[in-house]
Each structure stands twice: as structure tokens, then as C-alpha cells.
């Protein structure tokens, strides 16, 4: 379903991705590990199509992700370092917009997702008044709502308390249960109950 | 000969114009060659750092 072949990428002078290759099938979670600067974020952004690799290719459903970009993106949810939310809007307004441009979504769906990620009680406050952990929970609700097959998560557990991290683990398990694919960059390996788990070490010289 | 240089009185405009034109020609040649030599130097330095 998702295959990455021989990805080379430079960031300025540094040869960050040196021929990265892996593939993932539905129901599989790929954990990207490696120290800071090893290229975890760069790899995620390259898979998502935000970065053009100088060599190598990302394939989705057998076709090059670049040539079928819009279809690929409609099946993709990317959550970077910063939760993509507008500070002056409330959590609910943010989701109504960010999911609304992808597909029709009802207020009830939004409410359910916010409840699922424990963000419901602060969903109607302006996002800039929320803590980083609370913002992360609103963003996770967005990932849930997107209904995307492929999740690309960049250190999803940052700023989250203990049960927040457990929440991320269960959400990933549920996504794998739905025959989804998750590629997540993590600092400390995540323990998952079900689903196929593979690990990809980056930056090893 | 001086008649040639006077250029029927327009010499004071004509020669600076040609000087400017040829000056830009020479200047760009020099700048191109120096940019090439710095690029070669940097490439050599980069090769030493990570062969």
C-alpha cells in the first residue's frame, strides 16, 4: 500500500536521508526512531509530499504519490510538531474548517471526536488560551475525524500527560484495527497491544 | 588623431559610454572567473571534510 524506495534528501549541506526504503501494509504501524536531527521529520514530510526528494520515490497504492497527489492527500492525515490550529478560533471552529474542506462533517461527528480525545470541555475556548497538551488533543480529534487511511504523526505524544500518551496508543491501535496505516516518529518506543509493529532506525551512520 | 578623439565634440559623452560598456564586459568576466575559483575552493574544502 505505502512504499518508500531509496529516498535521498539534503537539507542545506547535510545529507539527511541516505537511501531510506521501507513499505507498510494496512494494519501496520511503522515507528521512526533516531536521535534529534536524524531526519524523522524530514522523512515524514517527504512521504506527505511537502518535501520533494532529490532521489527515490514514495508510492501509494502502487502509483507515485507525486502524480496522484490529490487522491493521496485525501487519504492522508499529517500531524506535525505544531498542532495546526488558528489561535483566534475555538477548537470546534478549527475542526469545522480543517475537516470541512476535506469532506462533509456534522457537528455531532466533531463533538464525538472531541469527546473521544478528551478535548470536549475546552472545545469552545479560543485555542490560544489552551495549553500545549490541550491543543494536541484537539489536533488528535482532527486526525480522528479526517477518516484518513494513512496517518503520519510527528512525535504525537509531546506535551501529553500519562493518560494522553495512553490515548495516542489506543487511537493508533484502533486505526490499525480499521486496516489503516500509521507512520509515527517517536522518541521513546510506543508499546502497542495489537497490530503489526515495525521499527525504522534513522540516522545510523 | 585628436580630431578622432573629439568625435565632433561629442567625445566627452561617447568615450565614457564606451568605457562603461567595456567596463561592464570586463567586470563581469572577472566576477565570473572569481566566482568559479571560490566555488572550486569550496568544493575542494567540502571534499576534505567528508570524502
Amino acid at each position, binding site marked *: 500500500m505505502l512504499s518508500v524506495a531509496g529516498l535521498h534528501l539534503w537539507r542545506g549541506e547535510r545529507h539527511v536521508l541516505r537511501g531510506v526504503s521501507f513499505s507498510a501494509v494496512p494494519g501496520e504501524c511503522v515507528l521512526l526512531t533516531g536521535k534529534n536531527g536524524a531526519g524523522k521529520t524530514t522523512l515524514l514530510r517527504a512521504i*506527505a*509530499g*511537502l*518535501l*520533494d526528494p532529490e532521489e527515490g520515490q514514495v508510492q501509494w497504492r502502487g502509483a507515485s504519490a507525486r502524480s496522484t497527489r*490529490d*487522491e*493521496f*492527500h*485525501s*487519504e*492522508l492525515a*499529517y500531524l*506535525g510538531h*505544531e*498542532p*495546526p*490550529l*488558528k*489561535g*483566534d*478560533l475555538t477548537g470546534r*471552529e478549527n475542526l*469545522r*474548517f*480543517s475537516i*470541512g*474542506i*476535506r*469532506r*462533509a462533517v456534522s457537528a455531532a461527528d466533531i463533538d464525538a471526536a472531541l469527546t473521544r480525545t478528551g478535548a470536549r470541555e475546552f472545545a469552545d475556548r479560543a485555542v490560544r488560551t489552551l495549553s500545549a497538551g490541550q491543543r494536541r488533543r484537539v489536533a488528535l480529534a482532527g486526525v480522528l475525524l479526517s477518516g484518513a487511511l494513512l496517518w503520519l504523526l510527528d512525535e504525537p505524544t509531546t506535551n501529553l500527560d500519562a493518560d494522553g500518551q495512553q490515548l495516542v496508543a489506543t487511537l493508533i491501535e484502533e486505526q490499525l484495527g480499521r486496516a489503516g496505516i500509521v507512520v509515527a516518529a517517536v522518541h521513546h518506543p510506543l508499546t502497542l497491544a495489537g497490530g503489526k509493529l515495525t521499527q525504522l532506525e534513522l540516522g545510523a551512520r | 588623431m585628436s580630431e578622432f578623439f573629439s568625435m565632433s565634440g561629442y567625445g566627452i559623452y561617447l568615450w565614457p559610454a564606451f568605457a562603461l560598456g567595456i567596463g561592464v564586459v570586463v567586470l563581469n568576466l572577472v566576477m565570473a572567473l572569481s566566482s568559479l575559483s571560490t566555488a572550486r575552493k569550496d568544493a575542494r574544502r567540502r571534499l576534505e571534510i567528508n570524502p
Partner: protein
Amino acid sequence: MKAPALEVARLVAARDLRLAFRKPSQLLQPLMFFMIVATLFPLTLTPEMSRLRDAAPGVLWVGALLSSLLALEFLFRDDAQDGTLEQFALSGQSLTWMLFAKTCVHWLLTGLPLALSAPIAAVGLGVPAGAMWSVVASLALGGFALSLIGAISAGLTLGARRGGVLLSLLTLPLAVPILIYGADATHRAIVGMEIAPPMYLLGAITVLGVTLAPLAAAAAVRIGLE
């Protein structure tokens, strides 16, 4: 399953309008800047109305251009910084279409109010009352073309550290035709001549802008987001 294009445009517009009205000060600043610039000329050039009237097209148009450049810098920069612009690019919808909607809303919030408030400054520059509507029309149309071209440079300068001055340096040469036709339309309005010829040409540029600029702006934003 995918949201239809009109719905996407409506959502983008609703979002930007709501964001703008949550922080109205940002809307007023370009207008205030325009008013101040317009009042500088009588102070520096001459209080004498007839000479001011000759300078009026230039003052109004250069003032309008500079204040719209001020507003343009934040067209994409805020969204790029908080990661929402990335989600635009990853939404599976046409980025060109969404940025076009965003640019139109930007014009509604900056270009149009500027054109509508221009008569206040124009009175101070000796512009006859009869010419006011033509002045507003020329500034409104020209403002739209400016926003379209400015969107490209706003996208291009996303990757640069300090976008502000660079944005103006990129946009001004491209805005020369708009300034020429716009200022001439305003001049003709002031002297009571027919404003159609320059307005048609300005309209032609705007149509060219509507068709090509959003494509270039989308490509520029994708490059800027790398």
C-alpha cells in the same frame, strides 16, 4: 465524499472573515496608513488645490499600493507559521482554488475598504465630488489586480526570512502596468474625461491575473512550505 469546490471556497472565506473580525485592528491599520500618506502631500508639496489635483492620482495610487503591500505580507505568513497553510496543501483539494478564495477575501478586507474610503483622502487633494465614484471604481479594480499579483510574491517570500521589504521589491515592478492604467483612470475621472479606455486595460490585466496568478501563488506556496 470530497467536499465540493464551492463549499471549500465558502469555508475558506468564512474562516478568514471570522479571523479578521476577531482582530479588527489589523484591518484598520492599512486604511490609517493610507490616510496618513495622503495627508503628507499637502504638507510637503503645496496646500494649493489646483497643483494638488494634478498630483492626486499619483498620491492615491501609490498610497493604495503601499498600504496593500503592508497587508499582503500577512496573507500567508500567519497561516504558514501555525501550520494551517500546510493543511491547505495537504487537504487533497485544489490549493490554487483555496488560495484564490483567500486572495479574494483579502481584497474584500483591504483593497475594497481602501477604495471606498479613498474619497475622504481625495477631497483633501482637490478631487471634484463628481469624480468620486470613478476614483473608487478604479481603485477597487486596481486593488483586486494588486492583491492577485501580490499573492504570488507573498507566496514566494514565505521561504525568505524577512519577507516585508522583499515582498515590495518583487511586487512593485509587476504592479507598474496596474499603476499606469489606474492612475490614468483616476486622472481622467478628475478632469471629467471618459475613464473607459484605461479601465478596460486595467480589467484585462485583472482577468489575466485571475487566471494565472492563483496558479503561480499555489506553486509558490508549495515551494515556500518545503
